[in-house]
């Protein structure tokens, strides 16, 4: 039986990466809150994490060539599909950033990031406990 660290940590590393990506995206939205014609962007993190959970159970296919296709339904977490937010109150200058909404999303994402780190920490300490003698 082989022990895989990747398997032990589950979707946590991938979800940390996705949440870091989203943090950056929301920070850009907040930075451009006053930029004319800037369109607020986000991605569906819940959906992506859902597909990641589903993926755990399926077997990965080995890709030996760069033009090999991925399995349908599998995600490339590096480039999540960016979507545009639908503004509740569009501004005359073409900007669709709602500062309150972005700040709320940022705080929410930061909390999720921290809780993922917490789970990751516990996973690491349980692996450590299993490896110790006593």
């Amino acid at each position, binding site marked *: 039986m082989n022990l895989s660290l990747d398997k032990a940590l589950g979707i946590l590393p991938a979800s940390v990466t996705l949440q*870091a*990506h989203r943090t*950056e995206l929301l920070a850009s939205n907040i930075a451009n809150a006053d930029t004319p014609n800037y369109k607020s962007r986000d991605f569906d993190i819940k959906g992506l994490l859902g597909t990641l959970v589903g993926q755990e159970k399926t077997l990965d296919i080995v890709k030996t060539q760069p033009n090999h296709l991925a399995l349908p339904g599998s995600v490339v977490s590096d*480039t999540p599909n960016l979507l545009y937010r639908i503004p509740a109150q569009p501004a005359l200058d073409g900007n669709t950033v709602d500062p309150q909404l972005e700040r709320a999303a940022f705080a929410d994402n930061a909390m999720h990031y921290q809780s993922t780190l917490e789970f990751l920490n516990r996973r690491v300490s349980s692996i450590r406990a299993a490896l110790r003698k006593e």
Partner: protein
Amino acid sequence: MSGDLFRLFNTSASALTAQSIRLNTVASNLANAATASKTPEETYKSKQVLFQTILDKEDPDRASMPVRVADIVDSPALPIPTYEPNHPQANADGYVFRPAISVVEEMANMMSASRSYEANVEVMNTARQLLQRTLQVGQN
């Protein structure tokens, strides 16, 4: 993909710079709101900043989108002449010219700029905390 959160500092810092330039123009507009001059040409022109997103042409889908001040434009509003024959700057007809600056508008602009500035500082603080936590994973 790695170093995502580090790029965030660049984005937020660019917004801080842009907002402080905006605050600076508001300050000079307010300072010169009552400056009188002899001719309409010499009159101070109200300054406004133009923000622009710095787009990465290589990768337009990237998450970090810093902002910059593309230009500082002079307002086309015509100076307001007032009849003040006793003013030292008055011209032959007894008129002085003052810039068409609305103090209320400038104050609103200032508040908007300082709120945006605060929001970006907060974002940077949160990102710093997140990074610190990330560095401490598995250290207990």
